[in-house]
């Protein structure tokens, strides 16, 4: 049997020239690069969570201090009773043509008016004719 102690101990693995001269520098570079790589996520975390949080705070502040909006013409009109409006229009000097000039009707408005006319019953038509003295 071949005995292990008969075999001389010998290092058979070789390394490229200057390998051990360069290795400390390679390791130091990798450690430095690793530090940089860990620095980026900190910055990224700030961007990822800091900016949205800041945006939420800014929006909340804006909404909290936002002044009450002035009432629009439409909201004022909706608060007036229809009878008062009709009475005002009866008494005013504004002609029907002048009123129509002030109103801009789009396609949707026209369709709604058309539907409303279509749905009018006979009694409604008679009432309108009476109002207009036809």
């Amino acid at each position, binding site marked *: 049997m071949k005995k*292990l102690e008969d075999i001389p101990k010998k290092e058979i*693995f*070789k390394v490229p020239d200057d*390998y*051990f001269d360069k*290795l*400390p520098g390679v*390791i*130091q570079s990798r450690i430095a690069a690793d530090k940089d790589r860990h620095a980026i996520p900190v910055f990224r975390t700030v961007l990822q969570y800091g900016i949205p949080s800041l945006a939420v705070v800014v929006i909340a502040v804006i909404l909290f201090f936002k002044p009450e909006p002035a009432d629009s013409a439409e909201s004022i009109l909706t608060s007036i009773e229809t009878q008062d409006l009709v009475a005002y229009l009866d008494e005013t000097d504004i002609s029907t043509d002048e009123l129509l000039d002030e109103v801009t009707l789009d396609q949707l408005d026209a369709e709604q008016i058309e539907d409303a006319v279509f749905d009018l019953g006979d009694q409604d038509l008679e009432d309108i004719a009476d109002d207009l003295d036809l």
Partner: protein
Amino acid sequence: MTAPSLEDHELLSKIKNPETRNYGFNLLVRAYQQRVYGHVRKMVIDHEDADDITQEVFIKIHKSIENFREDSLLYTWIYRIATNECLNFLQRKKRRFFLPIGDVGRELTSKLDNSPHVSGDEIQLKLQKALLKLPDKQRVVFNMKYYDDLSYEEIAEITGTSVGALKASYHHAVKKIEDYLTQ
């Protein structure tokens, strides 16, 4: 447990001082790189793999040296990190390619035959091939005892195995190697 040598103590002092940390760590790498590389290379055979693992070992040392307790020897601590890296590397290799132990051994044997960075006569190569027949843990113990001349107590500290178990493992390994060399 053995106290660290004066040289290691000075190295550690330099590393733990923020002003001399880089210089101290550079000295540590220079002091231990050949032992770490040699230990790793014997386990993974291929120079490129050994180079990668050696770098990883020192990066891990750099990350955790602040936590190193000086009640054990610095080099046994370094050996432990290097040993774990080697065993993990070989384990990953087996898992990645679903290889049985024998196939990894064959792959490493093939590297032994074809690597430009391997020299030695026929009996040396045959000894290395015999080692590749051993389980990884038994091989790492054999390498530390036979090539690095570490005592069983030191190997026990590195591997966390009892001295008795290590002695049995080593003698069993020697028996298997001699059987292989006789074939």
